């Protein structure tokens, strides 16, 4: 349904041109939840924004590539055509519902405005649609909540409203950028339940997160990004059971596990396997593999040559020379 081929996004900064997304390709099928995981600054949000062409101009530019949505390249559309796609065919859920909703308008008004922009119906009908959707995302007293301002709702409620807005026009694809990061775990669990329900509507989803646990709970397929590139891709079980790229391995090992090993006795805690060093600045990535200077298995070839994604079968791919056998 959505196919992204070799997109590269650059930003012009005072210190020079920064490649935020470097030659990224992937696809999303119908009714599939694809996770995009990586640390801050790895380019995962920029990838998502570029799909909707929301890269801030004039500093940001999509240099190369194509974004095919049902075979049509979104990069060729004019602004007016693009507006028809946004919110209707592809919608977005942002990390902070508090800043994504307008503080000056009631929930109802914001929802109705969006509906009327895309559908040729009366305001009354739009109001009803909005109200039904508030009910579907389990907001109590939807009738009254329509008149509430965002500040009157809690964070979890606001995120439900965002989800309702993203779904009410029955889009083909929802892009969710860290939808639960600002929420407490028990509220996060509620939102996940809602998203699982959402699959009934045949909606696909691109879920962006830094949390491998969230990926496990929600996704069918996973893309791991590191320093502007996709380093590994595969279905969920493959990524978790046989991670291949040293970064994916390190990422999985560095997550604290919810457990209290009986053997540790009085020691109090066990050392985590941390990835040494830190994410390099986008201005001076290593010239070969971007993970070169933190990789425990790096060898000479990694220094200057950029590894390509190597197919390991079953859609599992890793961008590492070690996977080449």
């Amino acid at each position, binding site marked *: 349904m959505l196919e992204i081929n070799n997109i590269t996004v650059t930003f012009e900064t005072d210190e020079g041109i920064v490649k935020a997304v470097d030659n990224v390709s992937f696809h999303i099928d119908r009714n599939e939840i694809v996770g995009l995981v990586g640390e801050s600054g790895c380019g995962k949000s920029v990838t998502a924004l570029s799909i909707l062409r929301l890269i801030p101009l004039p500093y940001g530019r999509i240099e190369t590539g194509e974004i095919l949505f049902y075979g049509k390249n979104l990069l060729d559309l004019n602004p007016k055509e693009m507006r028809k796609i946004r919110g209707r065919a592809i919608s977005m859920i942002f990390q902070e519902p508090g800043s994504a909703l307008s503080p000056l308008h009631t929930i109802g008004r914001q929802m109705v405005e969006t509906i009327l922009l895309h559908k040729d119906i009366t305001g009354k009908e739009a109001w009803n649609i909005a109200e039904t959707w508030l009910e579907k995302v389990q907001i109590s007293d939807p009738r009254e909540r329509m008149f509430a301002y965002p500040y009157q709702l809690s964070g979890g409620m606001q995120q439900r409203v965002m989800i309702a807005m993203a779904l009410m026009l029955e889009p083909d694809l929802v892009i969710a950028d860290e939808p639960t990061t600002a929420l407490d*775990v028990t509220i996060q669990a509620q939102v996940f339940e809602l998203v699982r329900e959402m699959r009934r509507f045949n909606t696909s989803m691109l879920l962006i997160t830094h949390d491998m*646990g969230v990926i496990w709970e929600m996704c069918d397929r996973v893309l791991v990004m590191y320093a502007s590139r996709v380093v590994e891709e595969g279905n969920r079980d493959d990524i*978790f059971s046989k991670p291949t790229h040293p970064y994916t391995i390190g*990422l999985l090992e560095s997550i*604290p596990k*919810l457990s209290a090993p009986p053997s540790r006795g009085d020691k109090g805690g066990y050392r985590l396997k941390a990835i040494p060093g830190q*994410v390099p600045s986008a201005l001076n990535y290593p010239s070969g593999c971007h993970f070169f200077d933190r990789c425990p298995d790096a060898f000479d070839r990694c220094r200057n040559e950029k590894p390509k994604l190597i197919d390991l079968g079953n859609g599992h791919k890793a961008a590492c020379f070690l996977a080449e056998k």
Partner: protein
Amino acid sequence: MNYKQPPKSPLLEANDLQTWFPIKRGILARTVGYVRAVDIASLYINRGETLGLVGESGCGKSTLGRTLLGLEKARRGKILFCGKNLLKLNRRELREIRRRMQIIFQDPLTALNPRMNVIDIITEGLVAFGLLEGTREDHAKRLMNEVGLDEEAIYRYPHEFSGGQRQRINIARALSLRPDLIVCDEPVSALDVSVQAQVINLLMDLRDRYNLSYLFISHDLSVVSNIAHRVAVMYLGRIVEQGSTGDIINNPMHPYTKALINAVPRPDSKEIEHKRERIILKGEIPSPSAPPSGCMFHTRCPEVMDICRERAPRETKSGMHGVWCHLYGRVVEWSSS
């Protein structure tokens, strides 16, 4: 500095602490109510021990940590540090105690003065307490080595460091006065996963090297289970369950603890995934300015009983594992607390 505690008596003990914030209205700023950030909380921390304090946002865990350090004023209760009640000390005595209790904040950047360089930041406390032996530079370099930073970087400013490095600077500052207790208030929440692990490891190494005690405050149960010896679970101003990390993770008793553990998204093996029933709590945390009657958790509890709406539960204890829930034990007398 190497004060030996008599065994058995904890380094820090807090009994029935209560910290309320007044809500003021009108031009006369009359108090119209209270935000009951910490309603009743008791805990203890032994020397060299890490107590994890978990709970969701707004449950009062940070306020509790700050109250223990005297950064917020407790309305009621007792805080015993090495046997001295902190709430009864005068300013001079308090100042000496404060040297021995430090704090690390969540956001490493805002916790550092942007106009001071690292050497000034991490030796400021030493100068203030007159504990500087030798030069500031020597001290700073030693501290930088201690937390795994380049000692040549002492003349740089906070903005020149990455998030993980900044948190190391905060740790170096907390360490500079050789404290006995460090309150770590969400010390790794603002960091990336790969860096988070480095900082957790560092905190554990330092604890073991200097026999430090930590109050480790976090919303992330996985992080806490990784570093803490014991865990206290807090909900709406009260501690609802307390016990060894093993007890809390493997044998949670309180319905809230169960739900909290259940809600942690994590990769499980296939078998566990099927066995694990999902407990999804309804609703949200009530406001601490108008807390529910009886048990604070009754509005969301899947196992709520009539009694829960009326009376606050007391602690039921088995060994070190304590739980505040009507499901366990019987209430001996009627009381409204």
